[in-house]
């Protein structure tokens, strides 16, 4: 089998070569500058290659060589805190090598080859080990990085294993004569195996009231955030990355804005992880393939990110994977498909769009890994529907797979209601599975309070229709109070300022207290109304002003307590 060939044709990122006889998805080097590419189609003697770098000036006749291997990522110590492009080239290293712009033909390994790590074995010579079992550990910042038996070794006996300082390429152990190093390679398009998948029943706590209370995502589940531009997809994704209770965050900036990635890159290192007190970056892997970087690398970026997420799941961690935006990924598929002159499906997207999306989201799961630990990957995919039209193919195909839908709304954005998650159109299908957790860990009546709040909001939207027609004056008093309570739920509870130091994160216990206070107001108002007090007086009790401001106060918890007391005294003063 020949591995050397020549270029036959160049058309944008798609290059046709002849002479190599590759397998599908083999990685090849194209041209004298050895640009990296991947074989995506084989027609007779011709191989069609998608090239991850700019192909300007590349000529027919230049050499092509086949590595014989599929696109892989390097897994091992050094992943955390890294910033990669779509094919796992570290961006800081690229900048050192070629300056402020990304030119082509530069390679850089995903893991630092020189750095030494302190390896501590947990098994000893003579032990029987299996694929995925933990051999030993390395402290990577504050995270315990577990070194596992490569999946390629099914079973074996340890001939030797040693503690000490090693690089990722040094031999740390020998299993049945096979040398094992800390670094493993894994093809990005193949899911890593687990021993058993579970039904998710623990919520991913995010500190965002509207999500944790109203539309929770289970650990190991998948959520979609579709929204027209400017509705705050990225802000929501970033809030989740910052505050969710996942132990590892993989953030994929797929075809998005450069300045936005810069914001992530500058902000994350400065942010403090509320649980460890360390920089958030210590538990994060960032993948940045901005919109003007090569489109084929954009296509690969989501797989690169997912494989890294799976590696950490296999150690028994809860991983949150954010993909911003899956629409750009789909567009990359469309662009490449159209260069291949494939028969298009809906709106020019390839017919395999739906299949690729499901394959990707199916890699989200809560599972027992091969080493016996429970881990999970929760996927939060942003979708950018053109013109905000949710009937377009990417959104529709995504909604068929994911079980949580956070609908972002332009109207709410215009009112500066943030996060712009529409409480009427969003949904979660994990309510039942998670109810037990909420009852046990928050309060027995939490699910009940939540459905009460949803009912009030639902009622409000019905009443609003009437108000639009005849004005609010003509409503009966109880309904006016319902509107006031709904307004409190919206303004105090649902609205949350992601940039405010106190309000940006609301622990679930506090969420319960706030909701309980709103319920308390509602109950008192109802009583007051029965006692013949006017709606005006009920609506303008001074405590509401204090309640509105409470979430921005440093001493928020004692402030909320005071709000509760004020409520009692002020309503008592009204004569309740």
């Amino acid at each position: 089998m020949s591995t050397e060939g020549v270029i036959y044709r160049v058309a944008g990122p798609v290059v046709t070569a002849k002479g190599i006889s590759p397998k599908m998805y083999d990685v090849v080097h194209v041209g004298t500058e050895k640009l990296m590419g991947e074989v995506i189609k084989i027609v007779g003697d011709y191989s069609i290659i998608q090239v991850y770098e700019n192909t300007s000036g590349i000529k027919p006749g230049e050499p092509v060589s086949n590595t014989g291997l599929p696109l892989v990522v390097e897994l091992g110590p050094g992943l955390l805190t890294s910033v990669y492009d779509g094919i796992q080239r570290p961006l800081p290293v690229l900048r050192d090598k070629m300056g402020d712009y990304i030119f082509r033909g530069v390679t850089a390994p995903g893991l630092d080859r020189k750095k030494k790590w302190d390896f501590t074995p947990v098994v000893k010579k003579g032990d029987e080990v299996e694929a995925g079992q933990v051999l030993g550990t390395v402290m990577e910042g504050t995270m315990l990085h577990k070194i596992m038996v490569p999946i390629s070794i099914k079973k074996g006996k340890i001939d030797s294993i040693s503690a000490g300082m090693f690089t990722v390429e040094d031999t740390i152990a020998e299993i049945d004569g096979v040398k094992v190093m800390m670094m493993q390679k894994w093809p990005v398009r193949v899911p890593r195996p687990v021993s058993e998948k579970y039904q998710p029943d623990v919520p991913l706590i995010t500190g965002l009231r509207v999500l944790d209370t109203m539309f929770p995502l289970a650990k190991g589940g998948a959520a979609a955030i579709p929204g027209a531009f400017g509705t705050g997809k990225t802000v929501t994704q970033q809030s989740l990355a910052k505050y969710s209770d996942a132990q590892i965050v993989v953030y994929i900036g797929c075809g998005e804005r450069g300045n936005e990635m810069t914001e992530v890159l500058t902000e994350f290192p400065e942010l403090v992880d509320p649980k460890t007190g360390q920089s958030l970056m210590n538990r994060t892997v960032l993948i940045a393939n901005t919109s003007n970087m090569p489109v084929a690398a954009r296509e690969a970026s989501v797989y690169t990110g997912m494989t890294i997420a799976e590696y950490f799941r296999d150690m028994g961690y809860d991983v949150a994977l954010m993909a911003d935006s899956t629409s750009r990924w789909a567009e990359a598929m469309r662009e490449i498909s159209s260069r291949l002159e494939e028969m298009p499906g809906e709106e020019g997207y390839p017919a395999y769009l739906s299949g690729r999306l499901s394959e990707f989201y199916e890699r989200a799961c809560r599972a027992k890994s091969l080493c016996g630990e429970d881990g999970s990957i929760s996927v939060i995919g942003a979708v950018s529907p053109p013109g905000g039209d949710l009937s377009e193919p990417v959104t529709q195909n995504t909604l068929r797979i994911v079980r949580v839908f956070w609908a972002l709304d332009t109207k709410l954005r215009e009112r500066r209601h943030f996060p712009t998650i529409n409480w009427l159109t969003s949904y979660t299908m994990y309510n039942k599975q998670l109810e037990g957790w909420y009852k046990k860990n928050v309060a027995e009546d939490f699910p009940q309070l939540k459905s009460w709040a949803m009912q009030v909001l639902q009622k409000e939207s019905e009443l609003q229709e009437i108000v639009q027609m005849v004005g609010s004056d003509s409503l009966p008093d109880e309904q006016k109070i319902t509107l006031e309570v709904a307004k409190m739920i919206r303004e105090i509870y649902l609205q949350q300022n992601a940039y405010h130091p106190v309000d940006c994160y609301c622990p679930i216990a506090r969420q319960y207290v706030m909701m309980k206070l709103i319920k308390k107001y509602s109950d008192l108002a109802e009583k007051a109304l029965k006692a013949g007090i006017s709606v005006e007086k009920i609506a303008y009790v001074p405590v509401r002003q204090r309640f509105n401001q409470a979430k921005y106060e440093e001493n928020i918890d004692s402030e909320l307590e005071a709000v509760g007391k004020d409520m009692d005294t002020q309503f008592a003063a009204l004569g309740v």
Partner: protein
Amino acid sequence: MANVKVSKEYKTISQIAGPLVFVKKTDPVGYQEMVNVRLSDGSMKRGQVLDSSEDLVVVQIFEGTTGIDRAASVRFLGETMKMPVSKDMLGRVLSGAGEPLDGGSKIIPEKELDIEGAAINPWARDSPADFIQTGISTIDGMNTLVRGQKLPIFSASGLPHNEIALQIARQAKVIGENEEFAVVFIAMGITNEEKQMFMTEFERTGALKNAVVFLNLADDPAVERIVTPRLGLTTAEYMAFDLGMQVLVIMTDVTNYCEALRQVGAAREEVPGRRGYPGYMYTDLAQLYERAGKIKDKKGSITQIPILSMPGDDITHPIPDLSGYITEGQIVLSRELHRSGIYPPVNVSSSLSRLMNSGIGKGKTRDDHKAVSDQMYAAYAEGKDLRGLVAIVGKDSLSAKDRKLLDFADLFEDRIVRQGVDEDRTIEDTLNIAWDILKELDVDQLNRIDRKYIEKYLKK
């Protein structure tokens, strides 16, 4: 150009279609290589390779294929398209293909740069954080522009987007700093009249001496229109990151650019995406817009104000839609406001600046800026809703508080939105006007503003 070998001429054109010429039996030709075509009358046309294989090379001709026959000879230049750049370009007027239009001499290059540019490494980017004062309240106060941002104006036919662009070009400054400032003005497919207006205005205000103007007019070939912004942005990059200048790039009209893209795509018989625009339009536009920004450890910056007219006033049309996904916000113009005689007719509710928060506040604009703008957004939105209600039930049936909101919406349009074409408001002016109209509301209606600012700025 020194190392370019004398290359062969081919007389093997097999097919000519639209802007494309197909050449057979060539030696290997590079993708995106530049091409000269000599016509039988001796005149020259330029082009670029779109698709290169051993058997056939597809060339896209910039000036259109009129006059080309199969006897024309084709010469491949062995290099991709370059832009000669130099500091002396300031004050020059160039064609859409980079040739002097002002009767001046050819540009003597200090450097020749590839016009496609390369992507800035996200790791090398610096976060935009410096406030640019445009003197327009709806932008400075409500949708703040910062250095390194790309903030388009979404307009439509018949609206005064050109006046606004010129006003920004004239008034834009960074407070308290005295740095070299340059404007790169890229016109794509504008009419001759528009060109006259821009040039007169540039000369009237003396802005031309700090500007480089690229003019691709409506009757220039469509393919050239695809090259024009790349020439302009390459020049801007040179000025910003080689010379350390603060560059403002104004591009008008992106819609014409996209039409050219569609035209060329159709000629290439590509599979079209939405509404016939090519499937790669997002990537293509990103390659223009993403050239805005700041780079760590470099003095200069590129700020872009692309202008696009929304066909049929439709913001969901692919051009504004894809742009909105790449740019950091948008300034949307409103036909309604324009009809009621308000200049600049900025529709504040649907406008947005994503980088606003990083450019405002204490030390940048003023401590109360964010709170004031949030409050005005919310109150204006409520006031506008009430207008609909008043049309049905009349003003009398509103509560006193609602009536105040209703009046606020009118005041907002009259005092904040409306201003003169030559009125250059400082950010202080804008915020003071804001407090002046906010005081018409009850204090408990100011629920977005911290009490300390209310005490500090609200004068009853």
